[in-house]
Structures are given as structure tokens and as C-alpha cells.
């Protein structure tokens, strides 16, 4: 009986890979919270967390413990199922993008070629885009189910902000697709490993994509959904304990993942700069080094996100919408037009 005619080793291999990548994302996000505080402290000329462990390194563990220990409150007037579902969706959509990112080249272990990518699907970059557009549900459902007007207002702000910035993001991606001629993320990286990084061809596109990524992650200067001075605490006002933790955590995962996506799209993915990886042949540590290179690139973006947060004040809401619709969309269209003309001319 061929009920499940699957290569079992493939299944095990993928399961381990998924576990590893999710763990990497979670741990990175955990230490991104520590990094955020340290960066903020340095920028504001403070010391930052320095009590728990050396350099305050155990601070995230203490924070996690605190969130777990806190009393879990579900408001009586809330829609209970959706109230619990909201943070879950936020977390899942934050993690799902990692499935199509090529985290490294192919490595040979136990006589098998293992590609450090969970799924090299044909529609890779569109998958990323779909998951990003799905991310808004976590905020909307959570905000609505809380049955609190501040949460609802924040959720609606978040939804309109995300939809507005998806548009220029998509347009920036289209111009990138014109240059690359493929939507498979593996092809993106292969081309950049063997040639020039895409940011050279698409500097304006990268600029637009970066701004949109900030907006999609709800980071300052676009953190209108949780503008404390206007909306108390934003869409997660009614949340407590680890459900709140999930929302806050999802933001850091989103930051990390979007940093990695930007590195993959524009900065060569797992390509080690100025090094010809192929010259080393098939050794296992080159795969590890490539993975570390991608991590480093992603973390640089995370640092830039934090840097922006602690130096640039928040936009007003109408300014945010103006920037999205009246500046970024025309700019992205212009970029698309120029790219199309250049691509046609070179052919």
C-alpha cells in the first residue's frame, strides 16, 4: 500500500531543518530584544541592561520568565477564541517566511546533499509577499477581538498602513524581477554569488523596499499602530502575559526575517563578500560560513532598524499616508519604468 510514498529521509531532513531554522529565528529575536536595549542605551548615553549575567546577557531569559509568570487575563467582553488566535497568527506569519529563504549553499553530510533551504518553490518571492500581506490579520483580529476602541483604532491604522506600503514594496519587487528574470529565491542568490549584488542594479528599488520593510514591521518612524501617546498601548493593549509577549516577539522576528530577505534580494544572500566560495571545493565548513555571512547581513539590518528607531521621531498619520501613496508609489513606478527601458535596451 503506497499511502505515503515519500522519501522518509527527506522528511526527517526537512523536519530537522525546520526545527533548526525556527530555533535560530527565535533565539535571534530573543537576543534582538537585548540588542535593542543596548543600542538604545548607547545612543542615549546610558549603560542598558547590565545586571543579569555578563553584559546583561541573561536579560532576555529573565524577561521571558517574567512574561510567562504574569497573570493571564482574557477580558470578559472580548471574543475569546479570536483573542487567543490573534497572537498565534502574528507569530506564525512572522516565522513562515523563513521557509523559502536560502540560508546557505548545499552541504554534504552523511552522504547526502542537503540544501540549507526548507523549500525552493517556484514562486519564492511571491510567497514572501503573500505571507507579509497575511501578517496584518494577527493585528486586525487581535485588535478587534479585544473589544476596546483603542485597540480597534490601532488595528485599523495598522491594516491601512500595511496595505499602503505593500503597494510600493510590490512595485520595487517587480523592477527587481525584471533584472533577475526569475522569482525563485535560489536563482536570485546564485546570480548574485556569481555576479554583482542586486543593490548595484537597483539602488532606488532597495531604498523603497527598505522603507516599506520598516513600515511592514511597524517600526519607528512608522509605529503608528502602537503610538503610546495617542492610543495608550496600541492594538495589544488588552493583552497580558505571553500573549503580549507573542506580539512583541513577532515584531522582532519580523525585523530579523525582513533583514534576511533584504540581504537575500539585494545583498547577495549567503554570498561571502570578496571571497570565491567555489574555490574551496566541497568542504562542510564553507556552508556554515555562508550561513554566518547571511546571519551577519541580516543582523546589520536589524541594527539599522534599531538605530532608526532611536534617532528618528514618529510620523504623523497623514504624513505616513502621504509618504506611502504620493511619494513612494510614484517613485517605485518611475524606478520600474527606468528598469524596463534599460532591460529592453540591453537586450
Amino acid at each position, binding site marked *: 500500500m*503506497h*499511502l*505515503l*510514498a*515519500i522519501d522518509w529521509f527527506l522528511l526527517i531532513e526537512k523536519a530537522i531543518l525546520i526545527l533548526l531554522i525556527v530555533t535560530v529565528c527565535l533565539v535571534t529575536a530573543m537576543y534582538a530584544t537585548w540588542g535593542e536595549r543596548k543600542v538604545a542605551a548607547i545612543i542615549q548615553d546610558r549603560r542598558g541592561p547590565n545586571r543579569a549575567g555578563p553584559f546583561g546577557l541573561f536579560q532576555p531569559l529573565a524577561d521571558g520568565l517574567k512574561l510567562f509568570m504574569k497573570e493571564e487575563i482574557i477580558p470578559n467582553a472580548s471574543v475569546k477564541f*479570536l483573542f487567543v488566535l490573534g497572537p498565534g497568527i502574528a507569530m506564525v506569519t512572522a516565522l513562515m517566511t523563513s521557509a523559502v529563504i536560502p540560508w546557505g549553499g548545499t552541504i554534504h553530510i552523511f552522504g547526502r546533499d542537503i540544501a540549507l533551504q526548507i523549500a525552493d*518553490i*517556484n*514562486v519564492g518571492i*511571491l*510567497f514572501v*509577499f*503573500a505571507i507579509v*500581506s*497575511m501578517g*496584518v*490579520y494577527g493585528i*486586525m*483580529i487581535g*485588535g*478587534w477581538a479585544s473589544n476596546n476602541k483603542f485597540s*480597534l483604532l490601532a*488595528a*485599523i491604522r495598522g*491594516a*491601512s498602513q500595511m*496595505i499602503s506600503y*505593500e503597494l510600493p514594496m510590490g512595485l520595487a519587487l517587480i523592477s527587481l524581477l525584471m533584472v533577475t528574470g526569475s*522569482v525563485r529565491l535560489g536563482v536570485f542568490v546564485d546570480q548574485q554569488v556569481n555576479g554583482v549584488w542586486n543593490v548595484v542594479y537597483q539602488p532606488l528599488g532597495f531604498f523603497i523596499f527598505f522603507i516599506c520593510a520598516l513600515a511592514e514591521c511597524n517600526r519607528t518612524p512608522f509605529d503608528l499602530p502602537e503610538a503610546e501617546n495617542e492610543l495608550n498601548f496600541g492594538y495589544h493593549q488588552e493583552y497580558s502575559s505571553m500573549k503580549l509577549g507573542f506580539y512583541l516577539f513577532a515584531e522582532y522576528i519580523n525585523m530579523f526575517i525582513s533583514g534576511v530577505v533584504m540581504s537575500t534580494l539585494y545583498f547577495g544572500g549567503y554570498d561571502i563578500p570578496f571571497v570565491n566560495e567555489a574555490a574551496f571545493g566541497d568542504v562542510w565548513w564553507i556552508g556554515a560560513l555562508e550561513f554566518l555571512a547571511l546571519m551577519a547581513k541580516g543582523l546589520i539590518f536589524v541594527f539599522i532598524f534599531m538605530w532608526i528607531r532611536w534617532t528618528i521621531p514618529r510620523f504623523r498619520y497623514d504624513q505616513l499616508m502621504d509618504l506611502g501613496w504620493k511619494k513612494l508609489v510614484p517613485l517605485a513606478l518611475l524606478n520600474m519604468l527606468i528598469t524596463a527601458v534599460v532591460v529592453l535596451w540591453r537586450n
Partner: protein
Amino acid sequence: MSITQILFWVLTAMAIGSSLMMITRKNPVYSVLWLIMTFFAISGHYLLMNAQFLFIVNLIVYTGAIMVLFLYVLMLIDLRHDTEPRKNKWLKFAGAVAGGCLLLVIVAALKDSDIKSNVVQTGEGDIGLIANLGKALFNEYVVPFEISSILFLSAMVGAVVIGKKE
């Protein structure tokens, strides 16, 4: 049963079940959430037919954009009170008759078509991949494609004009 068949039945049950849930919910927000589930199931069906582009575009456009806008509008309406006006009994009757007629027409149209001999090919055929779909759209169907894009543009312009009036 192969894994494709299992997936097919699971997705079918999901699609039908969630669309039934969608039309029976009183609260429109729940209806939209069930509709999103339906779209997921239908996207899964596209994937079984190896129509990857359709799969992802269905997710991006319908679940990612249109349903968010639906939800956006519905959440602004106060749904705590039963504000929905009681519908006329005759209106319900007329609705049932109209829906029944539509069902009849669809069944009649499907009965005589050669759909039974054209079984869907699962997991094969590569017309659904982006490259092939793009080539087909921009070579064979370029005129209908452009005309439909003009249609969308006119709808957009129309919406802006109506919005500006007030």
C-alpha cells in the same frame, strides 16, 4: 489512496465546510474569517493542479488584500447590537428562488459539458508555472489581457470620481 487524493479530500471538505460556515454565521466578521479559510482551501486545490502562480496570486490578492479591506469595513461597524434590519419574508423567498435558478443553470451547463471526460490532471502539466502562463498571456491572449486591465483602470478612476463628489 495516494497522498494527492488525501489532500484533495481534505481540501474539498475544508472548502465546502468553511463556505457553509461562512453563509450561516450571523456576525459578518466571522463570515469574512470563514471566507478566508475557503480561499485557503481553494488555493490548495490550485496547488494540487500545479497552478503555482494562481495559488500564490489567489493568496496575495484575495486573502491578503481584498479580505483585509472587507474586514476593515466590517470592524468599523458596531456589531454588538443586532442592527441588521429584519428582512421581508418575500425577499427571502425571492432570494431562494433566484439562487435555486442559478444552481439549476450551473448544473444543467455542467451536465452536458464534456467535463467528465476531462479529468483534472493533478501534479502535472506546467502551464500554471509563471513563465508559461506569462508567455501564454502576452502572446496568445494579449488583447483580452490589455482590455481587462483597461477595465480595471476605469473601475479605479470611477471609484475616485465617486469618492471625490462628496
